[in-house]
């Protein structure tokens, strides 16, 4: 495969960090998506088809993957504006599964057999993209846009009376989140050298949500830490052999009892007040 064991884990961590941020942006307007694996799949398949069958460069494929996933974000996010809370979560869950089933039966990418022949990704590429995304997300959240995201999450009606265009804000967040998931999907498919619909199950969407909630969904550093911990933890728990996922689950439950807001919360950054 070319990369060492540690190099592989580093790439996985980077990709998962992008995924965690993608959901963080969507969630920062109070929208829960359980279908991010679907956007990831769209990005992954688009990227793979472009580099393998059209022979384009990986960078170009990533740009197209982001645009296409963003377009689907618009298509899903627009009707989803009517839905709130748990209904939105379940509708997006349905979207994710429909995308998975679609690719399972898509003859062009040989269905559930999967497709291979991708060029690999490299640590510099993943981390360069990650740093750019982290910087832009951080800036976005500090800008007036970020403030209106937050206002919409806290109270949609109050935000509306303050003159915030809630529709535009929620859609923007949804589309941005979807495109980031698409970028991560394209990177992931190329890192794995292989793409197959089973990579994009409901479990994958849940995993992305775990990054966000465990790390903390209030500041940008939370999802990053969550992705780091939850990607590294199964590796660190290898010595537990068969029981490592049991311990992983127990740790998660314990965390939610001790720190339901996630590891990093906003208070940590405002001690001086």
């Amino acid at each position, binding site marked *: 495969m070319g990369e060492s064991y540690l190099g592989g884990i580093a790439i996985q961590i980077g990709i998962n960090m992008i995924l965690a941020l993608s959901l963080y942006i969507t969630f920062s307007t109070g929208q829960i998506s359980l279908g991010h694996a679907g956007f990831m799949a769209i990005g992954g398949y688009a990227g793979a088809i472009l580099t393998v069958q059209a022979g384009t460069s990986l960078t170009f494929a990533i740009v197209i993957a982001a645009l296409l996933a963003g377009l689907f974000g618009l298509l899903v996010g627009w009707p989803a504006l009517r839905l709130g809370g748990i209904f939105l979560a379940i509708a997006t869950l*349905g979207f994710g599964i429909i995308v998975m089933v679609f690719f399972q039966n898509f003859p062009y990418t040989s269905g559930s057999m999967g497709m291979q022949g991708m060029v690999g990704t490299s640590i510099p590429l993943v981390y360069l993209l990650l740093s750019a995304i982290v910087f832009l997300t951080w800036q976005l959240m500090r800008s007036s846009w970020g403030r209106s995201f937050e206002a919409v999450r806290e109270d949609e*009606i109050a935000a509306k009376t303050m003159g915030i265009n809630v529709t535009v804000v929620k859609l923007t967040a949804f589309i941005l989140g979807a495109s980031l998931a698409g970028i991560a999907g394209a990177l992931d498919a190329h890192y794995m050298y292989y793409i197959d619909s089973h990579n994009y199950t409901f479990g994958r969407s849940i995993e992305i949500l775990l990054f966000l909630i465990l790390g903390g969904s209030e500041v940008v550093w939370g999802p990053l830490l969550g992705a780091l911990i939850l990607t590294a933890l199964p590796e660190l728990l290898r010595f537990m052999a*068969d029981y490592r996922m*049991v311990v992983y689950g127990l740790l998660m439950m314990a965390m939610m009892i001790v720190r*339901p807001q996630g590891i990093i919360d906003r208070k940590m950054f405002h001690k001086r007040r």
Partner: protein
Amino acid sequence: MTILQQCINGLMLGSTYSLLAIGYTLVFGVLQMLNLAHGEVYMIAAFFAWAMVTMMKLPFFAAFIIASLIASLSGLLIELLCFRLVNKDYPLASLLSTIGLGIVLQNFALVFSKGEMVRFPSAFHDFNINIGGLAISGVHVLILSIGIALMLSLQVLIFKTNIGKALRAVAENRVVAGMFGLNVNFIVGVTFVISSGLAGVAGVLTAMAYHSITPFMGVEMGLKGLTVIVLGGMGSLTGAMIGGLMLGLGEVLAMGYLPMCLIGYKDAIAFIMLIMVLLIKPSGLMGRSQEVKV
């Protein structure tokens, strides 16, 4: 296979969906939160029943009852660990905690089954019931009758007894119910016991019908159950029952009558139905629409 046989099979499958969905909807009605370990309760009940029948050589009926009771008790554990101990101001924390518990149960089952598909023994020699020349599997009829009997008794429990009245009061408004002297924690506990017990029954029944169990059997069922409660309307008991039967019927009929090229898409049917219903009526078929208050 005639259409009547298909319908019986569909209703049989649907009754297990309904039992599972009722569990989701009861908990959601009382706490406004989802228990995503619900599918795993369904799965461990099947595993317990299997262990009791094959390892401890218990009679099948006893194993069925004990496994369902164990499932009910696990409901109390879920309530304590994932809901009571977790701060209510962070609803997603409870959701996550139930996912964590689901992972724990799944992997215990995985270690236990050594990663292989487990064959569930036949409860008794399957017999066919003949109605006007139609052969209908006796086990399927049995499952359907147990399912329907449970649903009807639950209707009586919820709408005719005092405990049911208390449960509805807590679902309506937790705080006010507490002020009127109801022991809210007790009622929530009862809800989890009923909910998980029904999931357990559904688990053993499905294992009986399909003769194979895996540690991951709860995942897909859990998702189907979720779909059903959204279709039927969150928190609506009748909606969950009818929604489950409809989904089972729809899936089996689609399998029988869809053109070959579309068979691969059958797992998407439930979700396509779901999204269409949500787009037309965001609160589900039988859900009450909620007013937004400032």
